[in-house]
């Protein structure tokens, strides 16, 4: 009896991954359909067909691309600035104790505050235009990335630095040839977390008053009780997130395949 069970679970392992993904997707579709026909949940859940219809409508009138485009622009704008600022700050924190002792408490404090809380400050400072959204996303991504990259700099194995020194490396060589490559895995983890923080903050950022954008599209559809569009928007944001993560994972495999154990 037990042997049979063993065989059965063995067989499960031989099923290729893409079949699992397909089955999982169809199951989700079925659940959504079920939720859309059950009286108690049908107010919230539009049917998959309605979502597809809403998507096609927005493709036909051309508005969906504008929403996606402007949202991606904000995500990348905030993220890129966050990354450019996070790198030097993280390295300074890793290198100089005085800088670390002064700055780290600020970062630890601010990163626990949800971005929505400081949106009024941002609006008062830079108005409600594009700048406001990018600033909010910038702050969120910067905080996530600076901590992760700083961990990487701190975690550089001292023995590797010693080994480089006895082979004739000066401080410059140590920075470029040891510290940077040794922290690359952490930098990429930072990029992954940063992109995900950027997406999470997007909806909040677009609530600062936007005429376009996926977050705005979802919010305004909600006001008209257009649940098909709400859910469609959420799914599009999810797909963008998944795609970005896949890209970073690919980069991680390319750039940090040398690692003994994968960093989380």
């Amino acid at each position, binding site marked *: 009896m037990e042997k049979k069970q063993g065989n059965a679970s063995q067989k499960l392992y031989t099923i290729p991954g893409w079949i699992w993904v397909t089955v999982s997707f169809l199951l989700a579709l079925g659940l959504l359909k079920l939720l859309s026909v059950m009286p108690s949940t049908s107010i919230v859940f539009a049917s998959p067909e309605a979502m597809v219809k809403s998507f096609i409508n927005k493709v036909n009138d051309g508005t969906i691309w504008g929403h996606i485009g402007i949202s991606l622009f904000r995500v990348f704008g905030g993220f890129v600035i966050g990354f450019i600022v996070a790198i030097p700050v993280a390295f300074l924190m890793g290198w100089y104790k005085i800088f670390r002792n002064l700055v780290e408490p600020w970062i630890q404090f601010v990163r626990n505050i949800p971005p929505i809380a400081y949106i009024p400050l941002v609006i008062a400072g830079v108005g409600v235009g594009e700048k406001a959204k990018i600033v909010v996303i910038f702050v969120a991504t910067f905080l996530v990335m600076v901590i992760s990259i700083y961990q990487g700099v701190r975690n550089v194995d001292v*023995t590797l630095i010693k*080994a480089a020194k*006895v*082979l*004739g490396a000066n401080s410059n060589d140590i920075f470029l040839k040891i510290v940077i490559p040794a922290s690359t895995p952490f930098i990429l983890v930072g990029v992954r977390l940063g992109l995900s923080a950027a997406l999470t903050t997007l909806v909040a950022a677009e609530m600062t008053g936007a005429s376009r954008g996926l977050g705005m599209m979802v919010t305004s559809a909600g006001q008209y009780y257009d649940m098909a569009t709400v859910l469609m928007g959420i799914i599009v944001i999810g797909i963008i997130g998944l795609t970005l993560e896949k890209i970073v994972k690919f980069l991680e495999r390319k750039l940090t395949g*040398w690692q*003994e154990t994968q960093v989380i």
Partner: protein
Amino acid sequence: MAGDTGNIKVKIDNVRKVFNGRNGEMIALNGVSLDIKENEFVCVVGPSGCGKSTLLNIIAGLEELTSGKVYVDGKEVQGPGTERGVVFQQYALFPWLTVRKNVEFGLKLKGLKQEEVGKIADKYIKMVDLEEFANSYPKELSGGMKQRVAIARAYAVNPEVLLMDEPFGALDAQTRTQLQSELLDTWEKERKTCFFITHDVDEAIILAQRVVIMSARPGRVKEIVDIDIPYPRTQETKMTKKFLELKNYIWSQVYQEYLEVRK
């Protein structure tokens, strides 16, 4: 006696090292003096925490001393330098570089031409018998192979003194014996001055011309034992009466220090 003639290559003169820790001062080394002659193979044994590694780091220029001086070729050590190569216990290979690139690391820093860099790297990768793995990453290698790469990397920059900090300590007994033989072969060919730290008395006797026994905290030179067993030494050497006598003697001295630590 072995190593009695020749110039003094490394002079350790009354070195003292005090660490200021949370629990106050800790004297790691107190008045350590030792002369290592050119081409000599010296092993240091002693109980854990006797400051062996600290001494090696000071000679390497990786750690500052509290007082005293270390000279290499009559020049005072002021920091790391390529005339002193170091092999660490934990291999310290750069994991993002292949075996070849690891060996080439120091050569490139010297500013040699790529052609020459490649040639020297080839020579030392061959010396440690890793030609097949030249393009592998450290994670694909066993512990013994990693340490071979580290040895090739240290040799490649052609240091005059090799400092080895328990290089075979993390390896299994069989691999350790094999690497000892390989190291002996290389040393007999190139005769580089070697300062080798170990806690394995057998290893110290089979390799060294002189074994330095260090005392427990604070670290001092307790005794220096001449090992007048002729080279080439092999695994059979370990069965000879002479070897066993030396082993008994050195081991009892180290054991005494170990008991001191326990007190």
